[in-house]
């Protein structure tokens, strides 16, 4: 049978090729995923981008002259950003500040998170179950609560208000205002404060990623080093560190992009010293209805993040995988901390008291004060929790448990977080599967990049674009493909799911990377189709990670407000909306109550998942 004996048919080849693509569910899913992501992510992005080139009605006055009309093509916004008198104060300085914060927070979070992860996973630290539960709490506490706590410790007399705890102590000791100012002010506000507070928030990412990586390292590798006579420091540096480096790089991306994108803490702690970053400029411009400038800035930030993702892909993309399921189970022998154990334990306990228990305590305390800022027993009340509407207090607003709107919002929030958690996680796992299987290939990289974009599109912009896209039926040739979704719960869900895909798919990717490809191939050989494989092999093996992915989404959607406020209708309000409304309504105590309820739900679900589902947020983010 020589080659020439084969008849060759172009038609057959084409037929086979099409058949192969169409009948392979993996291809179909990749295709569907790419199309959907393009529709749900690229479309909003292009919408944003194109708006930055269109002159808005409100900027006609600035452009001046008569030759211009609203809606015409313009470079006005980009020029204003890159080549005008404002460039320095609008772009350059804020950008430098952003990078400064981004790098410093990355370093801080990485160090803190990695040390904690190592202590939790590899050392013989006592009270590990408690610590590992506590270590994740900062991620659940809204960052503004932490900023508030920070100021209530360090606030100086110059900026007014009641002095912070430390400042008050110094004042009592008779130290003059000027000296206090010189010592405390640099700590209290500005970059240092921001970096510390943000690091205390975002170290969770590193902790999650690195502890997952550490978990998958066979301790024999370290023991081998010990046998060779290496010191513990050398083992850490030469063996452990390189093994968890990819996880750290991943954490750097998440932390860095989040740190340059965050606004609340920077505004809170940066304002008193006029420390502004790209994100604060973005927010200010958006609040000043300079939407186009804000969009242009958001696009810049997306570019920065995309570059960091790209670098990450280059750095760790070539690594084979971290397949730990299917290989030999690694033994893990804790490393003795020796004489340092009591000291480290005490430091950790102190850390948790300061970073976790304090903010929560302050929040609870404030929710129980009849008048804010008056620290006395008579001032203590449970009115804001369960009072039944006294017209003298807060304009007759009843305590939250007596308030129908609270109950409605509670129901809505729970529904939204649960539904989103489930759907988000499923999509995340599927996308993670694509990223993992397509690692180093074009479609894998594409999906990984696409999925990361919503991470940085400002929530408000994202919500607004979705409102436009889905408020009327999507039609093609007169056939309605997607009915108008505005005002429906579905739209809330779609928006939240897409916005949280970066987390979900990150969790999914690491999950899938842990599953050795041969396990699936073995099933292929047995004749199991794609779906059978997914249901019988892939899904059961990733169950733990599934629950963790669910938790990640659950936590962040529980806190979400900006994203869905545009899409919300009066009957679909959620707890964060209520908290915001109370704050607006001069009822900060009620707002605190709602925040505590939110936190409690999140913590309860996390604790339950931790106890019963052997879920671990950590497992869900490696890779």
């Amino acid at each position, binding site marked *: 049978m020589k080659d020439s004996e084969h008849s060759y048919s172009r038609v057959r080849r084409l037929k086979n090729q099409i058949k192969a693509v*169409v*009948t392979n*569910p993996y291809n*179909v899913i990749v*295709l*569907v995923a790419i*199309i*959907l992501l*393009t*529709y749900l992510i690229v*479309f909003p992005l292009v919408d944003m981008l194109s708006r930055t080139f269109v002159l808005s*009605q*409100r*900027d006609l*006055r*600035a452009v001046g002259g008569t030759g211009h009309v609203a809606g015409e093509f313009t470079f006005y916004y980009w020029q204003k950003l890159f080549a005008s*008198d*404002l460039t320095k*104060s609008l772009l350059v*300085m804020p950008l430098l500040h952003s990078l400064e914060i981004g790098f410093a927070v990355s370093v801080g979070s990485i160090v803190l998170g990695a040390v904690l992860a190592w202590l939790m996973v590899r050392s013989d630290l006592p009270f590990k179950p408690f610590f590992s539960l506590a270590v994740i709490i900062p991620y659940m506490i809204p960052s503004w609560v932490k900023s508030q706590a920070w100021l209530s410790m360090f606030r100086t*007399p*110059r*900026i*007014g*208000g*009641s002095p912070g705890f430390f400042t008050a102590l110094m004042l009592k000791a008779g130290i003059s*205002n000027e000296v206090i100012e010189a010592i405390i002010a640099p700590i209290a506000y500005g970059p240092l404060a921001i970096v510390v507070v943000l690091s205390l928030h975002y170290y969770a990412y590193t902790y999650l990623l690195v502890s997952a990586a550490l978990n998958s390292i066979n301790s024999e590798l370290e023991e081998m080093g010990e046998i060779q006579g290496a010191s513990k420091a050398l083992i850490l540096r030469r063996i452990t560190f390189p093994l968890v480096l990819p996880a750290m790089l991943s954490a750097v991306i998440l932390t860095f992009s989040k740190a340059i994108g965050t606004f609340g803490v920077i*505004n809170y702690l940066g*304002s*008193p010293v*006029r420390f502004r970053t790209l994100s604060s400029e973005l927010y*200010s411009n*958006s*609040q*000043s*209805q300079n939407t186009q400038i804000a969009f242009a800035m958001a696009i810049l930030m997306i570019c920065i993040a995309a570059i960091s993702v790209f670098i990450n892909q280059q750095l760790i993309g070539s690594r084979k995988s971290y397949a730990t399921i299917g290989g030999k189970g690694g033994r893990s022998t804790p490393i003795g901390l020796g004489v340092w154990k009591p000291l480290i334990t005490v430091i950790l306990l102190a850390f948790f008291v300061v970073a976790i228990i304090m903010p929560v305590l302050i929040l609870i305390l404030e929710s129980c004060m009849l*008048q*804010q*800022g008056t620290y006395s027993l008579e001032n203590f009340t449970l009115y804001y929790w369960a009072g039944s509407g006294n017209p003298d207090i807060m*304009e007759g607003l009843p305590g939250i448990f007596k308030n129908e709107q609270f109950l409605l919002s509670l129901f809505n929030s729970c529904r939204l977080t649960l539904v989103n958690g489930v759907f988000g996680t499923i999509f995340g796992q599927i996308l993670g599967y694509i990223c993992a299987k397509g690692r180093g290939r074009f479609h894998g990289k594409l999906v990984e990049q696409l999925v990361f974009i919503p991470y940085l599109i400002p929530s408000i912009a994202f919500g*607004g674009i979705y*409102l*436009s*896209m889905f408020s*009327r039926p*999507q039609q*093609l040739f007169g056939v309605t*493909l*997607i009915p*108008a979704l505005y*005002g429906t719960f579905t739209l809330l869900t779609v928006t939240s799911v897409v916005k949280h895909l970066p987390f979900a798919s990150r969790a999914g990717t690491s999950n899938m990377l842990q599953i050795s490809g041969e396990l699936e191939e073995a099933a292929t050989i047995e004749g199991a189709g794609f*779906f059978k494989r997914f249901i019988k092999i892939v899904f059961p093996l990733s169950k733990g990670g599934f629950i963790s992915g669910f938790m990640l989404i659950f936590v962040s959607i529980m806190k979400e407000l900006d994203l869905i*406020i*545009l899409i*919300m*209708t*009066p009957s679909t309000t959620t707890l964060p909306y209520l908290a915001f*409304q109370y704050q*607006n309504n*001069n009822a900060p105590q009620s707002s605190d109550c709602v925040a505590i309820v939110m936190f409690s739900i999140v913590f309860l679900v996390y604790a339950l998942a931790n106890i019963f589902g052997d879920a671990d947020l950590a497992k869900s983010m490696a890779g």
Partner: protein
Amino acid sequence: MYKHKKWLAALMAVVMIAGLAACGGGSSSGGSTTPATTTTEPAQSGGETTTTPAATSDLTEWEQFANIFATDETDEELYQLALEQGGEVSIYSISSRTPKVKEAFEAKYPGLTCTTFDIKTNELLEKVTREHEAGQTVADVVHIKDQDGSLFKEYIDVPDPMLYNYKPADIFAHIDPQYTATATPLYIELTQLFYNTEAYPDGSPITNIWQLTDPEWKGKVTMQNPLDNISWGTWITGFCCEEEAERLAVAYKELYGEDIVLSDGCPNAGYEFLKRLHENDPIYYASSDATAEAVGTRGQSDPPVGFSASSKIRKNKDNDWCLGVVNLYPDTGIPAVNTLYVVEGCAHPAAAKLLIRYMMGGVDGDLGGYKPFNTQGGWPVRDDIPGAEGDMPYSEINVAPYNVEELYVSYNTVRDFWQMLG
């Protein structure tokens, strides 16, 4: 297996088509603002009951249906019409006090249901715009502030308006025309300077606005960064308007006894004031609450003074603060007027108009709709409604002239000016 494959192939096709449709749908979504289809049906039935058939040819279908330019309808007429139009009305508001209006409104007009949604200025505008573009008009009434005149210039005074000013003649008769020229005003708020009455029991240490630029007050004035939002951005713009700048120049001379010398890049005394204020290192806070807290907290030996929303005076009671209001000379800047609009294409225009009349205090002496807004730190626009207890009468407060046209034109320039200061 084969079932799955077919199913998937079909799904894929659907998704691809959906993708195409989205692109198509997106490109057309930015265009014209035709009324929602839901409004066309009542338009036919409601059109017959409208009272002003004149000039109908120039009006859009919805404008006829809503009879939006009528100024002489009575509460009773509107009530009946509202019932015919479904008995519902929906309001988006920047105030969290609207639920109280809702209760009073529903009690006064049985059969009407009012839905309220409170949301911040930006989100409100974004939401209404997006809904309107998509033809999914939900809100009938919008309660917002037209800070820099952009609502008037961009949403009302344009060929295809998204918002309409409803101008009930009987009520407008009681309002200063400078506030009704471009909007239907509800009540007035101010940005005021506060001081700590505990630290300064003899009264405000500052009376003339230029004192804030003295070295004595360097780093001791709290405010929000004017760049942070449109309210503060407009407030600083107010100082740079021509008439106000002249007042500032006069005040300067009165304080220092000499004419003001303008720096490079400062076209008038207003810009000069902003420049010097900026150079005096004001302390920015992230919110109006925080600026007020910084000033009003008791037990401070050397507290700052600070600009804050006038409504924060109420926190004296809630939080045991000791804020004192300064009636600044020449003035405290421009007022922030809360305004009400009817949304184009809405399905319940009669109820919307009725609700607006009710909120503005009506004409029958029932102030139930206005009461929730008549609190300390907010002033009625009407001359026949008394202000809240404890407030200085509005007429005695020094307020800058309010010229929407000029504000609108200068807003960008002044904001950029402040941005350039760093």
